[in-house]
């Protein structure tokens, strides 16, 4: 099924059409959500610290 056919089927089956503008807005919202996760997430920060330690240890070898 090519992309246009899938899009058409989706519109018919789900009775929902999203304009290109709304699609862009929602994608930007998702991107902002990822950015917020990158800034706030403890695992993200901890893994950066771990990588920094590994690099420092490798540099000392």
């Amino acid at each position, binding site marked *: *099924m*090519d*992309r246009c056919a*899938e*899009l058409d*089927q*989706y519109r018919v*089956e*789900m*009775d*929902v059409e*999203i304009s*290109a503008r709304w*699609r*862009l807005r*929602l*994608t930007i*919202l*998702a*991107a902002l*959500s*990822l950015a*917020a*996760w*990158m800034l*706030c*997430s*403890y*695992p*993200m920060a*901890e*893994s950066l610290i*771990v*990588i920094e330690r*590994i690099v420092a240890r490798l540099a000392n070898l």
Partner: protein
Amino acid sequence: MLLVVAYFAAAIWTGLILTRLLFAGEPRRYRLIVLVVLAQTAVLLPVHAVAAMELAGLIDRVDSVYLAVAQGLILCVALACHRLYARPQIDTEGHAMPWNCPWFLRLASVAVGGAYLVGAANALPGYIREFDAARYHLLLPLRWTIDGSFSISSTTDWRMSMPANAEASMFVIFAGGFEHFLSVVQWGPLFGLTAAVYCLALSLSKSRDAAWMCVVVLLTIPIIFFQSFSGYVDLFALSFIVAAMALGERSLEHSDEAGESTWRWLAMAGLACGIAIGTKHVYLAFGALLGLGLVILHARKSLRPLAVGTWAAVTLLFGIAIPSAFWYLRAALLTGNPLHPLGVTIGGYELLDGVAPSKINQLNWAIGRWVGSEAGWLVYPWLEYQSGGRMTRYSVDSGLGAVVATFVPLGVLFFVWLAWRRRTDGTLWFWLAMWVSCGLIWWYPLHQTLRFGLVFVVLSVVMTAPFLAALSAAGGWLFGGLFLASTVVACSIVALEPASSIASRFIFDLWSRPQIYRYPPVIDDLPGGATILSFEATRNMAMAGSRLNHRVVGSFELHGRPTDEHLRQHRIDYIVGRRRHVERVERLTTVELIYREKFVDPISGGSELWSLWKVNRDD
């Protein structure tokens, strides 16, 4: 080794035969779920049957030979059924439309596959060390192997007397004398879970891209990733309850009045639900919710609601009983309480004697562990805090991952909007009601323990499918890039810990069991069959020794400070502990110190003073 491989191969073969017999011509994605459910049932039934025979006094002890014979019998029955009832099948599925998988989804799948390869490379040659797994989940099948019995009593510790289908699968591996490859028991259910999520997401979005994206989102969840290589049982139970949802949903697409058979799908949904209910009590609530929902929906869409509803309930209950009745009957017959170790109290009146659920799963345990207050759950996907977590704070009971934070909250909001827009669409409202109900079960009776809420999380992922379909259908590079970036970040972080573990194994040359579990090798030299009281909660499993021939009693089984009476009661031969346990043990009159040395941790360089006492029992 050969016996264990043959046992699992026979179970898969039985599953394949029955799937082909009962579900020929059905879509392949559903047949895969059925295969996993039937194969897992075939793994469990011989264990249940042989254990029941031992409890009934028909055999001396549960033994791998009896298991092999029982598995062989099941396979013979399946082969006989195939010979008697198999008819030439016409492929009604037809040729599937070719699927042009988008570039970003291919790359994201490669990233997920890479992370799981790193996880497997770390887990397979290693040993399971996660807290609850090493403390009691693995101890239980090992105890069955050494005792040759599944017996419990009303005084057995709650950790050692719960329903245990996941541990029963591990028991087969232990019975073959193996400790490596234990996490393999999680992989079949994980495969079933991905197939079930794919089916549910496809049914909600009508888009194969979106369904596959949901699978990718699911596999990037750190709790799912880490449990796939662990001895925890949440993923195992989760997989089968979600499989039951997918099979139950499929049953609703059929109608007996239109000449289509629904019982097969309902029975399979029941089997899957039964495996989950026989794994963990927590899933009783989710199973009851799903069963009730399916019975009501089947009754509603029929012209004979009472008859159809009753028939659906009976079929479901029959399916549920097959893989779970053993545990509840064992509890009822040996302790008088079918829900043992759980106690049930209503309005101050004790209906069933046992441990209060709030003592097992403490109230407010989540506060301070994952969130500061209950309102903190609203931002948890973006913070993923865990107090005292490991390397990255991701673990078997913490973390949702970058892809969930990026798409799932927005996807759920989109789903709610879609349901409001399509008020007459019962399917959307059914899943919304299931999602809310699962959330309420997790919030109130399960006290917001994160891994107990995995059903809620997985349903959230499934509900994101229409959102992902809407955003991806136009094939824009912005969405593709975002999906790929979040997947790569999530996979890199979850793979960091296993990769670091593999690297340290090579750098510090850590290959032996004592080195990996970090315990003095003198434990391995203790005589076979000895009973060891271990104060080392996270190393209880380690104390079984390299030959797995020590019977380990965890200190939690004493329910208090050790006494000489405890030592007699549990027939303890040796006690092992570190510096902080010395004072507790040396008050006992029947112990004699036989070993005390510093054991140097090869990675941290720190040393721990280990002590080993011999118990001089007069019996």
